[in-house]
């Protein structure tokens, strides 16, 4: 089975009452999503993204053509048991509590009570809703409902995850966390079919994308290849003197090329996250979600956990990139030979973060997440990177981090 999702001239025509064709919602769609890739289905509103997903899952019958999920029919329970699905809105039973909701879905998969119990706790922890686990879902904000929706899609440890607009209704931190989660799931060998019109999401996490318009694929390919401007180069430096800038300009002018010099802007996303995280660590009360972003241990991975973690923390550039600015991570990975140069270039791009303060915040953060039991996973989280719980790594991370952000902000 080469493809996780494959469609053969999938077509959906909505007809009127008399059976006359009215709208071609999806038109001869041939889609191939490979195993273990994050695939983004993009398109404006009404371009047939959701209709495609509904046909994949058997919620709509295709007018013509066929769709295979994991090599089988999307309505077959055997296939369903390996799929996680998050619809465009989290359609939840309002009268169930968060915990009951997950329990209900766990029982639909026929999971034994003990496994269910274990997974529910892990998932609640992961999406940061442990504190409100016994509140009715109907009282949740949209973002919180979204998190439960996501947890629901993961309860069976799916091989294929189908997410329809996973970040709608989420605050920037939630968005960031879900993007991180998707990346980590991909690292664990899951295939993700992501459907969105929020381009930033797609850009950050997807390996390949297809752009849909009018039910047809307009273009598809690897994100990097589609977006990279091969005729441009970008250099990021520390705050160098004006005379050096002049020298560089002369060097560039010698090659007959244009050169623009400016101070890189922080990405609004990173800035926002930093502010809110700081407030969270001062334990300011909120009724919303408090996420630890711990990934559920039950979510299987193809390689042993240690090796991934080791890889993540030992490689100087990629780990934080994969979490903070994944789009550029791939660029960085592609430039692997220049790694040392890149590290040199990015050193102390900004005044280094105030570490003592950060440590205090970390202590506060520990108080906030009372249930943070297995702390070895916590080091992966944004929280850690921002607060510097493990200073030996965070120093290095912070610097490269901001430089990455600056780079993408500039680009």
């Amino acid at each position, binding site marked *: 089975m080469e493809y996780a999702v494959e469609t053969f001239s999938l077509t959906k025509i*909505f007809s009127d009452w008399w059976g006359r064709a009215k*709208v071609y*919602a999806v038109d001869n769609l041939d889609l191939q999503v490979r195993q273990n890739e994050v695939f983004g289905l993009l398109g404006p509103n*009404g371009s*047939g993204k*959701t*209709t495609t997903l*509904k046909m994949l*899952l*058997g*919620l*709509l*019958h295709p007018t013509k053509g066929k769709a295979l999920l994991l090599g089988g029919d*999307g309505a077959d*329970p*055997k296939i*369903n*048991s390996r*799929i996680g*699905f*998050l*619809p465009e*809105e989290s*359609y*939840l*039973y309002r*009268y*169930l509590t968060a915990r*009951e909701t997950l329990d*209900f*879905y766990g*029982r*639909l*998969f*026929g999971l034994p009570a003990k496994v269910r119990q274990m997974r529910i706790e892990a998932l609640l922890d992961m999406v940061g809703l442990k504190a409100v686990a016994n509140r009715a879902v109907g009282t949740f904000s949209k973002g919180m409902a979204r998190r439960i*929706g996501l947890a*629901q*899609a993961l309860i*069976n440890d799916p091989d294929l995850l189908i997410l329809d607009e996973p970040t709608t209704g989420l605050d920037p931190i939630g968005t960031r966390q879900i993007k991180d989660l998707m990346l980590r799931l991909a690292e664990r060998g899951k295939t993700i079919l992501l459907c969105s019109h929020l381009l930033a999401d797609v850009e950050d996490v997807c390996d390949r994308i297809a752009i849909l318009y009018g039910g047809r694929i307009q273009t598809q390919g690897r994100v990097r290849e589609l977006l990279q401007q091969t005729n441009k180069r970008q250099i990021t430096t520390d705050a160098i003197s004006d005379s050096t800038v002049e020298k560089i300009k002369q060097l560039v002018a010698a090659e007959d090329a244009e050169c623009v010099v400016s101070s890189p802007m922080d990405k609004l996303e990173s800035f926002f996250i930093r502010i809110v995280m700081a407030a969270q660590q001062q334990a300011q009360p909120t009724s919303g979600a408090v996420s630890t972003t711990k990934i559920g241990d039950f979510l299987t991975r193809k390689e042993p956990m240690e090796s991934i973690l080791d890889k993540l923390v030992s490689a100087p550039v990629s780990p934080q990139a994969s979490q903070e600015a994944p789009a550029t991570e791939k660029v960085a990975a592609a430039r692997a030979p220049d790694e040392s140069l890149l590290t040199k270039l990015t050193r102390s791009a900004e005044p280094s973060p105030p570490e003592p303060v950060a440590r205090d915040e970390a202590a506060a953060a520990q108080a906030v997440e009372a249930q943070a039991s297995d702390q070895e996973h916590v080091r992966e989280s944004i929280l850690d990177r921002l607060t510097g719980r493990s200073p030996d790594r965070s120093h290095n991370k912070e610097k490269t981090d901001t430089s990455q952000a600056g780079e993408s902000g500039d680009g």
Partner: protein
Amino acid sequence: MGSIWAVATNTIRQAVRMKVALVFMVLLFVLLPALGFSATGDETLKGRLQTFVSYGLSLMSFLLCLLTIIISIYSITSDIEHRQIYTVITKPIRRFQFLLGKLLGVIVLDTILVSIFAAVIYVVTIYMPRFVNASEQELTEANNQFLTARAALTVPEVDVTKEVRERYEQLKKLDQLPPDYTQDQIIAELTKQAQLAHRAAGVGDVLVWEFDNIKPLAEGMFIRFKYDVSPNPPDSQVYGRWLAGDSQYIKYGEPVKTPIYDQVHKHVARTFHEIEFPAAVVPESGRLAIAFMNVPLNATTVIFPPDGLEVLYKADSFTANFVRAVLLILFRLIFLACLGVLASSFLSFPVAILFCLVLFLTASFSGFVVESFDYLSANIGAVYSYTLKWVIRLLPEFDKFNPTEFMVPARLLSWSVLARCAAVIVCLKAFLILILGLVIFSYREIAKITV
């Protein structure tokens, strides 16, 4: 099975937490005891009990029927309407399992509610004699005629075909046939007259009924009857001399070993009455004769309507009968739950509710409906009997299996009647309806069309 049960428990949770069930429970909890105090009937203890049980069971049945229709439809259509079904149906559960889960949830909920309310009615009934200062006589009457389960022996309509045929030939010979009527109409009219003649007693006449194979369990036996009179006596009172005993004596006056019951009673016409007589009069052969004599005091013809005379004897306990009557209600609810599943498999909430309510009301008066259709469709017989007739026949006859019809006269609701009801209403009709609903739901598109 695990996933079906998951859906079922979720449905029960929904019914409980959305307070749908709660409203009905409060209603019943308020209304039932209120009924217990307000229902006085004809002021006797028996009357009180009859009124309470009849109103109580009817009320419970009616409210739970409504509740079943609403919950079974709401829980399915709201899942589709609010799209929770997207996340449920994409899990490893087949669509028919989803519907079965919903159905199971409703049935479990119904069973719980029926048990609770039946228990309330039962307890109030059993303890009512203690709250009401009933006289000894009233107590005995209530025990014998209400807090029991009696088998009934009915009188079949006399076969008068031969008689009518002869009469018709005779009229034809005399050329006295009414000119404007067809042969069928004349024969029907003659049959009616002949049958009436067998049930009517002129002044001084005697009517005799015979019953075979009687094995009474209790001391007392009962004649339950209703007089029709023509012309009406001034105070509507009818005097009747009633005899019960060995048919050898009653028919031929031969001396017999067993005692003979022989008494004159005065009763109001046009309502049912009961006369108790000792079981000792039943001869060893088990062949019992009942005779009615229209005493000359009356000066009116007394007619017994077709179902106007029965002999009752104790055959089971009140408790057992009550349990079976409650099961009858449960069968009704199961049918309605299946009907709700069918309706919501292809209709939206308001339409499905309307659809089910219409069918429910039709089923409640099915005898009337079938009769009127039979009458109206006399001219389009072929079309009717191949189409609409079968649709109407598919409806359960709730009025035929009405629990109060059994409970009020303390009539035995035997296991065989109950089994027949289960077979017809649940195993056949509800099952067919459910299968239809499952098939429709399995092939329909769940998602809404959104472009």
